[in-house]
């Protein structure tokens, strides 16, 4: 138990992340901005991501607590700090972790001016809301919580490990409007979720008519865990077999799903631009290797009722304990189901409005970064909105940004983001071109870089591409 607790705590701040890539969104100098808005303006003729290096993305966050809150160097006791945080945090606080690794990413502009792009990436996505009541029960026990209804419905967590194959189209259809769509095929390697749970656990002091001192009651419990890709792993021996089996599913060996990304870029006038996109509108259909567990029912435990039956020599009494176990299993059965289920992907919405000023033309004659038409501005300022649908409702973030094209080989974007984690998230992204090689690095929560332990979320994206601007 203690190790589990330590493990969960050690995840804080390192892996707790949302999927917001506020710096990369609208950062047209980086081909991967097409992954966030398939309808964004494409400035290059072709791009090839360097395999396995074109996008490495980590994002981790915890909305209620930072590593520093727990592990700070001080004279007070770490257990007091945990107790204090336990009561400060709400059941809507959450821990998230996302990791993406692009295996392939490529794109080219066809003769009909459609920019085709496609690729493969692997994604891990985890979220767990803070089950405050159960944490208090585990941390303090029930002695000081008589009559308190511990809420079993606070358990809400999902985890996915999948490979995504995608192919998208992007076209400027009028002078002002560029649209794009991307079809995605998901191959789920491993997935679990435990959401929409309900029920309470209460310890009440019994009265004169009660059977025993207390009544321990589980009321209207309905707790389920759905898994896919897990049942077959149980029989495997050792980590290497499990790894091989999971990786084997990456190539359509797992459960398959489909989804789309849609997006647009609309130039309202020379200065103002409106953009928007929806990612991962789709679902995974879990039918292979599915195993779900559901416990439901109501039961009151009073202890063991001794009958004192008259026994002859050698007779044994009733199997009270086994009978009690059977009774609990009968009243709160744990069913194992193998029914298929459909899991909707967490839809992400991005929107932005930007104001551009200063015409960008490095060499005077050759407007090299401007193959897609329109006017490239030297500087842009604007607002962005991000939302991701999570089990307990959408999580949102608002970003103020400043984007500047400094030279034809260097541009940068700075962001200030307000989200569930903090009101002081400053991020910076840089895209640099050395010859045809594009390198980009985007990180947020820079104010916390001096001491990452104080950050409640960390997000990092970096990658290398080969970009070809000439026809």
């Amino acid at each position, binding site marked *: *138990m*203690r190790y589990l*607790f*330590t493990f969960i*705590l*050690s995840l804080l701040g390192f892996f707790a992340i949302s999927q917001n890539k506020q710096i990369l969104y609208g950062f047209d100098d980086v081909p991967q901005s097409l992954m966030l808005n398939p309808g964004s303006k494409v400035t290059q003729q072709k791009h090839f991501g360097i395999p396995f290096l074109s996008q490495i993305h980590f994002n981790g966050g915890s909305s209620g607590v930072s*590593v*520093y809150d727990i*592990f*700070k*160097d001080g004279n007070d*006791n*770490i*257990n007091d700090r945990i107790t204090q945080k336990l009561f400060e945090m709400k059941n809507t606080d959450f821990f998230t972790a996302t990791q993406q690794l692009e295996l392939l990413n490529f794109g080219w502009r066809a003769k009909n001016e459609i920019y085709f792009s496609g690729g493969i990436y692997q994604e891990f996505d985890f979220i767990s809301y803070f089950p405050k009541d159960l944490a208090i*029960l*585990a*941390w*303090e*026990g*029930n*002695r*000081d919580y*008589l009559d308190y209804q511990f809420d079993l419905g606070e358990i809400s967590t999902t985890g996915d490990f999948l490979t995504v194959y995608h192919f998208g189209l992007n076209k400027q259809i009028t002078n002002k409007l560029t649209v794009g769509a991307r079809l995605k095929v998901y191959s789920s390697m491993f997935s679990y979720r435990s959401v929409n749970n309900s029920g309470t656990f209460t*310890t009440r002091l019994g009265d004169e008519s*009660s*059977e*025993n*001192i*207390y009544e*321990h009651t589980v009321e209207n419990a309905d707790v389920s865990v759905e898994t896919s890709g897990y049942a077959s792993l149980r029989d495997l021996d050792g980590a290497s077999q499990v790894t091989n089996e999971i990786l084997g599913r990456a190539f359509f060996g797992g459960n398959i799903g489909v989804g789309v990304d849609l997006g647009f870029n609309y130039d309202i006038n020379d200065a103002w631009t409106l953009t928007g996109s929806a990612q991962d509108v789709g679902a995974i259909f879990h039918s292979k290797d599915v195993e779900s567990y559901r416990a439901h029912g109501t039961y009151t*435990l*009073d*202890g*063991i*009722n*001794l*009958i*004192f*039956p*008259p026994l002859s020599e050698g007779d*044994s*009494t009733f*199997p*009270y*304990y*086994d009978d009690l176990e059977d009774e609990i299993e009968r009243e709160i059965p744990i069913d194992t189901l193998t029914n298929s289920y459909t899991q909707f992907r967490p839809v992400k919405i991005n929107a932005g409005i930007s104001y551009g000023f200063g015409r960008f033309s490095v060499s005077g004659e050759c407007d090299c970064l401007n193959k897609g038409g329109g006017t490239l501005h030297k500087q842009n300022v604007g607002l962005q909105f991000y939302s991701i649908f999570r089990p307990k409702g959408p999580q949102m973030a608002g970003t103020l940004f400043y984007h500047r094209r*400094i*030279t034809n080989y*260097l541009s*940068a974007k700075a962001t200030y983001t307000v989200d569930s984690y903090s009101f002081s998230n400053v991020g*910076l992204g*840089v895209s640099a071109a050395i010859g045809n090689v594009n390198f980009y*690095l985007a*990180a947020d929560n*820079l104010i916390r*870089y*001096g*001491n*990452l*332990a104080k950050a409640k979320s960390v997000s990092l994206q970096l990658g290398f591409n080969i970009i070809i601007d000439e026809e």
Partner: protein
Amino acid sequence: MNKTISHSIYMVCACLLFSACIKDTDFDQAEEIALTPIVELDLIYFNLRADQFYDTINSTPVLTVTDTTEIKFLDDSSLQESLKRAEFYFKFTNSIPRTFQVDFQFLSETNDTTYVAGTSVIEGMPAAPVITEFIENVEEDDILRLTQANKVVVSVTIPSSNESLEGTLNLKSKTTYFLEY
């Protein structure tokens, strides 16, 4: 000017990459993390009628009645490690006009006695039940002996009995487990 800006941005990036760190934290404190829940849990209960102390067929008193139940969770290895103290609370409500001696004998899987506890119960009246409370506190070395047990034998002894004896002896009990993980 552009060069200056670009150089400064490179510098900032380089600084960020090399300066990001985790300070003022001590992860060795993880060793000190201790969950110390205090769990209240019902134990056994019974209602013994006065007539259970008299064999009407053979017309002989039954001076001691016993019953046994397994308590399998007690010798669970994780409980053995984490249990620091256990406090048993027994509440007898006696309306039988007799005193009683009640003994709790904890046995291991191989039926070796690992721990014993017992108390006497004050006599009551059918119209005026009397409450006797008994607390048994188990800690330190006794915890090790207690957690070797996986069943408990409850013996209730009456000094004398007859056919006309009336009333009930009721027991309610709970245990407070002081745990540390």
